[in-house]
């Protein structure tokens, strides 16, 4: 596995060097004085959002590169299906009127996915075995509210039914910034697997009611750079817990209490990708710092079996971390894109009253996306893509007694078809995952 890590890292570096060929500024690039900017085919609220997120100001001069970046920002808005820029004559010679034509996504949307996960060993999740068929579906509405607000509400199921309500305020502080809030509630049961840093025992927690709240604020600092602050709180009433990789016959331990995760982070982002959901070109970088706090409740074994016979105490994990992420999307032909991505974090973790330990994690991936549509536009389907990926992740946690693991590695390969049109995003796929883990 270590050889694989080295090879993946070397390939990633080589790919990165190729992908990051020096871009030279165009000395003779034309600039345009934008006397007025008009957003066509949009309501006043949508027009105001598009204008603020473009970061273009009337009475300023812009190069074509700056206009292209502005167009990418508009196209990344989740409710924008397509957008185009056109320059027209202004009121005096040398002045231009920029027309931004926007085609909106439907206010009504459907999301669905169906994935067959195959594992290299027996995994105990909602079902126990070497395969798991996962289905999720959601329907919702999204529309503009007030001056520059966007409200959305939806219901869905990911093994359990949930409801979601969110609101995004654009044009924050008059800077093109935004603030987003999202609440999610589920009354029915589900099985949650927490991030390795939050639960190094790699357990599946059977929960009842669960609730999640997320807040995000983003402020642009230059045309492709922004600062983002996020906070997320997730809590659920735990009922039972069982190790993911334990003996299948061992009864799940009873759990009583609340498990929760609180995470706050502050990141610098650089984004030139052309699409928020299915990018085909561009670069995304982020660097930041954050705090993660996780609580897992006490659990008590049931009956007699080969599993742990002692109660597992409640546990609190606090981690302060630094994180880096990079994704590069390269269009290699008109219909094919290659993706290379790398995410990493390094943290100092304290579990209960134990001394702080260094923890780290790495996720590297290579992907390929092939458009199954011809180059001529099909207005009923925007995207029909065959996506293939290879992903490797490595996590190293603090040295804790069993059942905790100190290391967790995962190699995943998968493929699937993604369909997107103006009101739907549907995925069907299959993946195969092998795991490796170590104890102290």
């Amino acid at each position, binding site marked *: 596995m270590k050889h694989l890590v080295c090879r993946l890292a070397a390939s990633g570096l080589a790919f990165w060097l*190729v*992908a990051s*060929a*020096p*871009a*030279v*500024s*165009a000395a*003779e*690039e*034309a600039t345009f004085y934008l006397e007025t900017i008009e957003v066509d085919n949009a309501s006043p609220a949508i027009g105001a959002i598009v204008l603020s997120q473009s970061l273009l100001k009337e009475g300023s001069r812009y190069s*074509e*590169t700056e*206009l*292209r970046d502005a167009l990418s920002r508009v196209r990344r808005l989740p409710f924008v299906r397509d957008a*185009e*820029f*056109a*320059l*027209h*004559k202004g009121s005096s*010679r*040398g002045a*231009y009127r920029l027309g931004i034509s926007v085609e909106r996504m439907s206010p009504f949307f459907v999301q669905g996915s169906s994935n067959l996960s195959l594992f290299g060993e027996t995994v105990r999740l909602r079902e126990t075995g070497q395969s798991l068929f996962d289905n999720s579906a959601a329907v919702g509405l999204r529309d503009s509210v007030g001056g520059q607000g966007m409200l959305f509400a939806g219901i869905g199921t990911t093994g359990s039914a949930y409801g979601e309500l969110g609101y995004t305020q654009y044009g924050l502080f008059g800077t093109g910034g935004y603030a987003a809030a999202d609440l999610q509630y589920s009354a029915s049961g589900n099985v949650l697997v927490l991030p390795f840093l939050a639960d190094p025992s790699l357990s599946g927690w059977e929960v009842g009611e669960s609730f999640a709240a997320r807040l995000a604020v983003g402020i642009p600092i230059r045309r492709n750079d922004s600062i983002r602050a996020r906070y997320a709180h997730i809590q659920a009433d735990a009922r039972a817990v069982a190790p993911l990789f334990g003996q299948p016959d061992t009864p799940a331990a009873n759990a009583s209490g609340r498990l929760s995760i609180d995470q706050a982070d502050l990141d610098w982002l650089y984004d030139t990708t*052309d699409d928020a959901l299915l990018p*085909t*070109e561009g670069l995304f970088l982020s660097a930041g710092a954050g705090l993660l706090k996780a609580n897992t409740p006490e659990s008590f074994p049931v009956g007699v079996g080969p599993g742990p016979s002692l109660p597992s105490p409640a546990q609190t994990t606090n981690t302060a971390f630094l994180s880096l992420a990079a994704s590069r999307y*390269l*269009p*290699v*032909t*008109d*219909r*094919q894109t*290659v993706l290379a991505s790398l995410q990493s974090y390094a943290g100092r973790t304290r579990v209960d009253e134990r001394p702080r330990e260094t923890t780290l994690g790495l996720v590297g991936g*290579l992907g*390929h996306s*092939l458009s199954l549509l*011809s*180059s*001529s*536009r099909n207005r009923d389907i925007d995207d029909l893509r065959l996506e*293939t990926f*290879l992903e490797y992740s490595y996590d190293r946690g603090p040295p804790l007694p069993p059942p905790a693991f100190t290391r967790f590695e995962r190699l995943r390969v998968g493929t699937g078809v993604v369909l997107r049109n103006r009101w739907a995003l549907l995925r069907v796929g299959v993946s195969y995952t092998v795991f490796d883990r170590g104890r102290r």
Partner: protein
Amino acid sequence: VILAVLLLVGELSDGTQPGLQASPRANWEEAKLRVRIPSQVLLDAEVRRVLQSGLTVTFLFEFAIPRARLEEHARLEVRYEPWDETYLVSLLSEGERRSETLASFEAFVRWWETLRWTVSSAPPLVSAGRAELKITVSVVPFSATEERDARHWFAQSIEEPRDLGSPPAAGGPGAQSTRDDMLGALITTAIKRRALRTFRWTVIIPDQERR
């Protein structure tokens, strides 16, 4: 290996073409292979619309002779100037830049029809077997200027063309050069921005000796 297979499958499935009646013509002039691209490219509705945007539109030309392992590129940038209602064109071919201002769309079409694209490295045909010239024209919104030097930076990875009459060698050094070709092709096409429209043709290169 998986990536190479996926790219190959993608390329093989990438056979769709806009329905253009006209096709390019290739012939030898003064021992150089010259190509004319039909002006119907400009009449395509999508191309015509983006040409009117007042922002630069780039036409990327690729001429490939697979038998000679040859690939050459040229670029034409066009910007419609709303104030003068003129078309500012800038042509980069064979390492030379040529800029012109054309008074109308019709003048731009006529100018396009006069263009003779030279595949300067095309080696002479010495055998009876005919070689194919693959032509790709990609229409890319906005300027591709910043890609120029990156392309030039990578151009060293393209090897010298081989004689059209001799088939590619199997094994030995040939195996290495095939790998270099794949890398070169991957890199040079990787810099290309996603095209709005792509036109592809395959034409037979006429026999030079018989002319």
